[in-house]
């Protein structure tokens, strides 16, 4: 485990160089938040509660969602595809490191940097500018753990898609489709309560809602009891383990293809 820390530290420090980018991302988030504010205010003009959520809750959800979006959107698949295209994969395979753990550490380093540089500044916006408050509750304590689990799930999915690149060159469609599915069905854009009931039932069984919906609900309605949150986290944990292991197994298959086809 110790040998992976420098990798995380490396990507963390790389983030420091891109100071300009952070400013713009935060600016982008502010604009996004403002527009979302107006949009949802118009939507809530006719009723105080829609699908069980108040304006405050929905806006908080969307606002915090944009803050954590950068954390949970790993680029694991894009990086692996890039490295395959440029023939750089061989560099990693000859080193005595676990490919999955390597990618995880690298992405984790970026996560920490983004957390400090983007998420925290963005997260205070709803409270600071729009005067939306978070009520205290158990959810707030569980949130960090939930976020970590969400990261693991998102990473494993992206890593899996990345490995698909060993099989085919035309991965743009695959990555994009994955992104669409994850973004729409995870609750990254809107709380899942807005979807029709039938679809919600299906989504509950999929891992995607465990990425955004679960951790964000902990922040928007932290006062809900442990009896609500713990099962949700159990689902997260289950998916995190299943997907991590599945990706690991897939790696063993995918690497065989690479050995045949060449770097």
């Amino acid at each position, binding site marked *: 485990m110790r040998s992976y820390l420098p990798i995380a530290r490396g990507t963390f*420090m790389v983030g*420091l*160089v891109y*100071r300009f980018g952070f400013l713009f991302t935060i600016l982008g988030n502010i604009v996004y938040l403002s527009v979302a504010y107006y949009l949802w205010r118009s939507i809530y003009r006719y009723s105080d509660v829609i699908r069980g959520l108040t304006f405050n809750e929905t806006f908080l959800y969307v606002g915090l969602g944009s803050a954590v979006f950068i954390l949970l959107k790993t680029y694991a698949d894009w990086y692996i595809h890039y490295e395959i295209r440029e023939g750089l994969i061989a560099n990693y395979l000859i080193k005595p490191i676990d490919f999955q753990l390597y990618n995880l550490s690298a992405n984790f380093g970026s996560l920490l940097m983004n957390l400090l540089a983007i998420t925290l500044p963005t997260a205070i916006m709803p409270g600071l500018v729009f005067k939306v408050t978070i009520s205290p509750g158990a959810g707030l304590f569980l949130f960090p753990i939930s976020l970590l689990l969400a990261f693991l799930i998102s990473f494993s999915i992206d890593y899996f898609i990345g490995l698909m690149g060993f099989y085919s060159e035309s991965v743009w469609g695959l990555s994009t489709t994955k992104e669409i599915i994850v973004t729409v069905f995870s609750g990254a854009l809107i709380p899942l309560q807005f979807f029709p009931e039938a679809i919600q039932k299906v989504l509950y069984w999929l891992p995607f809602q465990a990425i955004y919906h679960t951790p964000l609900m902990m922040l928007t309605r932290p006062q809900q009891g442990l009896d609500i949150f713990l099962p949700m986290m159990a689902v997260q944990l289950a998916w995190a383990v299943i997907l991590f292991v599945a990706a690991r197994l897939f790696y063993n298959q995918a690497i065989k293809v690479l050995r045949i086809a060449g770097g």
Partner: protein
Amino acid sequence: MSLIHIQNLSKHFKILNRREGLGGAFRDLFSGNYRTVEAVSDVSFDIDAGEIVGYIGPNGAGKSTTIKMMTGILKPSGGIIEVNGRPPYDNRIRQAQIMGVVFGQRSQLWWDLPVIESFKILKEIYKVDQKTFDRHMNMFNDLVGLSALYSQQVRTLSLGQRMLCDITASFLHNPQVVFLDEPTIGLDISVKAKIRSVIKELNSERNTTIILTTHDLGDVEALCHRIIIIDKGKILYDGDIKKVNALFGAYRTLKLQLDNFNETTIQILNDKLCERFGTSNGITVAETEEFWTDVTIDQARTPLSDVLNFVMSNFPVDDVRIVEISMENVVRKVYDGALG
């Protein structure tokens, strides 16, 4: 009037000093610290039509900066530069019509298209009329067998084939000057020879001026009548290649792998050589790569064979290689005034 006229040319850049470490990176966030770099200073030379000029120097010498100014990409900070009577940065599109550029590292052809399609597109871009196009394509075919490659996509060509395509393509519109940057890099001997003969042929056929930047001495020896050496932004030598050739020929480096190599070995070797051959023997001893000792010999003063015999008889030599002098060493010697 010379085709390329450069007088007192200079160019400087402002570079950000990046500070080290975590703390330094944080400080960089708030205050930039710049320094000025003189990439090219007070450079002057004239090149006439039809010349093949080798423009060489170590990395960071100012080569590409000068080339960029000649091709109109960069504006000089001072001095005069004229290509075909005009400053190249004045009208890029017009200048591009009389110029050809080839990069050794990256192709300028369309990657996914068959070779012939790239040529056809270039025909349209450079407004080459059909007769000239056919004539040139026939010439290219005679020279390199281009028609065999017509239907192959550029991305599927071998490096050598791609280079040949890039080079011939750069002559399609009959430019007055062609800039070749590392045209033989990464190629094997036979392909290198082929490319050199193609360049020579095109130069004599069309009287095209050729500016060649390369780290490969073989290129220079095969093609150039004239050589310009640049280092640290200044011209060190501009003249006949024969003079420099003599210099190349005169120097050899004996690479030795000595048994029991330790920190005193270099000194002992040097002392022994001075004992045997005298103090102004033109021999320098240095350690370069791990465990290899370089003995550089000026053959005008001490014959290689004598040194080799002496070393083999008196020192435990595991392995030996004889190499020609490297570009860096040539320039270093020129800088030290070897050419006078």
